[in-house]
């Protein structure tokens, strides 16, 4: 009889091409997602060494990080130029490299264009049990459908383009089990913020986290992608959620997903992708779903999480002396005083978007809160950025865009936008942003920007009240 294995071990074992004596394995990569920022140097490396792309059929390129989220076509349907010369150069490089190497390419004005981690599952390009890589650390996102997915650097992008493999050491495994039912107003984002606050930003270092438990099983695929997306914020290289009927239902009929008899064979294999009874993880953390409140970050590390009903902590309250120093620094940067109620923190900017929270369910959750309300006067800038052209079209078909614009929020074109300060969407120095993205690092949304990570519903609540707000107070 074979030894009981975790989900991670099953996927790993199915992808070993070669094992080195020291345990390092050459792992086959089933899907490679490419965007404009981390690929130019990789293609330049291929060219310099006269190499080709081994499996262009397993590679999908789409621009997302740099593309402006304002209109991309003029009234006559011509493409508008990108003002920033460096962004334009990166985009031009991808536009040239993809066809040259025979790679599938979704261009900046295609209806399917969007954030690479939204596009992958949406197109059925990302599948359960596959290994997926991309030169972006939030590749962990695809773990939400049961893929072993992780971010890689540019040298590795070049390595995968050339060989369709990566040399990897097996990770340790960690189970984060969330049992029970979450309360009203508590979303997938609150679950993952709460987890990150509980395990810490380095809690999962060296591990792949499998999220289990009834609260995870109850999530839609969109919600699972949100949870797995932020595995990296807990230090883990990847997140995983075992595929189930919810996953199959979501994937069925998507353009790149298997069809007909292939579909049945695929589902049969996917059903075997669960952690065996008796398999052990290196670390286990159990969380009671009832303990999770709508959550918000107060500092500059994603572990700096409190319930919205909480207060800014006193740095002296941390046991670890280096955390005390870090917390004091964070508070100085964030312009916050210990003891301030989170709900008294006023907000000037709202960003609803990013690969964490820009899917249709996120758009609906935010729209449900702003509907019939108006943006608060002190909110200077509030943008809603759908994760892909298809999300945008769906939202528009449901009339969500009008709900946002009537409330005074801007409705944009898909892309990474204000998740990172790399395109024109930025938060000004010293200003606060209630953001549905995944990182509250110093300068992440622009030099001097102050980020509070929240769910889409919480960001929408802040938009209409002008301060961090307990969304439950606005729910009918």
């Amino acid at each position, binding site marked *: 009889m074979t030894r009981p294995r975790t989900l991670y071990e099953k996927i790993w074992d199915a992808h070993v091409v070669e094992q080195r004596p020291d345990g*390092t394995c050459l792992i086959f990569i089933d899907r490679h997602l490419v965007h404009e920022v981390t690929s130019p140097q990789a293609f330049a490396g291929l060219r310099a060494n006269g190499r080709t792309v081994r499996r262009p059929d397993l590679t999908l390129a789409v621009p997302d990080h740099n593309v402006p989220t304002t209109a991309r076509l003029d009234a006559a349907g011509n493409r508008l130029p990108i003002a920033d010369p460096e962004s334009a150069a990166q985009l031009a490089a991808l536009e040239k490299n993809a066809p040259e190497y025979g790679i599938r390419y979704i261009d900046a004005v295609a209806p399917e264009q969007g954030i690479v981690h939204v596009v992958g599952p949406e197109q*059925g390009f990302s599948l359960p049990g596959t290994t997926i890589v991309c030169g972006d650390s939030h590749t962990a996102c695809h773990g939400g459908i049961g893929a072993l997915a992780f971010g890689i650097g540019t040298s590795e992008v070049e390595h995968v383009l050339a060989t369709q493999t990566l040399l990897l050491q097996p990770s340790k495994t960690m189970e984060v089990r969330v049992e029970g039912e979450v309360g009203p107003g508590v979303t997938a984002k609150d679950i993952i913020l709460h987890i990150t606050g509980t395990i810490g930003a380095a809690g999962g270092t060296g591990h792949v986290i499998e999220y289990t438990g009834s609260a995870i099983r109850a999530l839609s695929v969109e919600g699972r992608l949100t949870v797995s997306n932020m595995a990296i914020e807990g230090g883990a290289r990847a997140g995983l959620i075992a595929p189930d009927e919810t996953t199959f239902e979501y994937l069925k009929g998507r353009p790149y997903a298997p069809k007909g008899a292939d579909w049945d064979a695929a589902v049969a294999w996917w059903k075997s992708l669960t952690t065996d009874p008796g398999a052990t993880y290196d670390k286990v953390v159990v969380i009671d779903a009832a303990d999770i409140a709508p959550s918000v970050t107060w500092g500059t590390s994603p572990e700096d999480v409190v319930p919205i009903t909480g207060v800014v902590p006193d740095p002296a309250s941390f046991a670890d002396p280096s955390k005390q120093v870090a917390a004091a620094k964070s508070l100085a940067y964030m312009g916050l005083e210990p003891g301030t109620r989170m709900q008294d923190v006023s907000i000037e900017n709202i960003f609803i978007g990013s690969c964490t929270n820009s899917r249709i369910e996120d758009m609906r959750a935010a729209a449900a809160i702003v509907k019939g309300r108006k943006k608060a006067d002190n909110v200077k800038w509030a943008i809603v950025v759908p994760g892909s052209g298809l999300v945008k079209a769906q939202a528009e078909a449901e009339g969500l865009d009008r709900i946002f614009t009537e409330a005074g929020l801007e409705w944009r074109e898909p892309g990474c936008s204000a998740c990172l300060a790399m395109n024109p969407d930025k938060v000004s120095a010293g200003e606060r942003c209630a953001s549905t993205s995944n990182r509250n690092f110093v300068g992440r949304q622009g030099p001097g920007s102050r980020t509070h990570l929240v769910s889409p519903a919480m960001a929408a609540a802040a938009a209409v009240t002008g301060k961090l707000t307990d969304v439950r107070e606005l729910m009918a």
Partner: protein
Amino acid sequence: MTPLNQVEGRAIPLGLKNVDTDVIIPAHWLKTTTREGMGRGAFESIRKDPDNLFDRAEFKGAPILIAGDNFGCGSSREHAAWALGDLGIRVVIAPSYSDIFSGNAVKNGILPVVLPQAAIDRLMEVAATDPVHVDLEHQTVTTQFQDRFTFEIDPFRKMCLIEGLDEISLTEKSDAAIGDYEKQLDAERPWMRPAA
């Protein structure tokens, strides 16, 4: 890649925990299509302070950087390793690293040394005034004051660093094995190929 074995020189005693890749190289430096010149943007937010460590005369061109837990956390950008390399850093010493960062470091000829916090505290003291010596072959960090700390490193990474090996050429030696895997995959799970 430049081979790395013995590194002797001043070590910048940064000491901070959770130094993320946004601190190492802010996002607005990422919009390039080449790898060179990133050092100018390295630690930009810290270097705004005129009295910062990096720009002090004694630490200019220092080949070693000492930091706290979880160095290189955050975004997977390899630009962080390029920026450190361009700044002249060949060795980072810290109690822990983000997985992605330590992989990127090795690929760019930078050695991530893991030492316990107590050793880091001692090295921070020494680094303020004196050089530090790193010996990859013997896996030690030493000072002229008889300090001697040994560290662990994955043997494959060690070999790549010492020989300055490029990983793609190494993997290309496994070309036949990759081909066999692909054939087997097509036979066992043909539906794994994208449908459209």
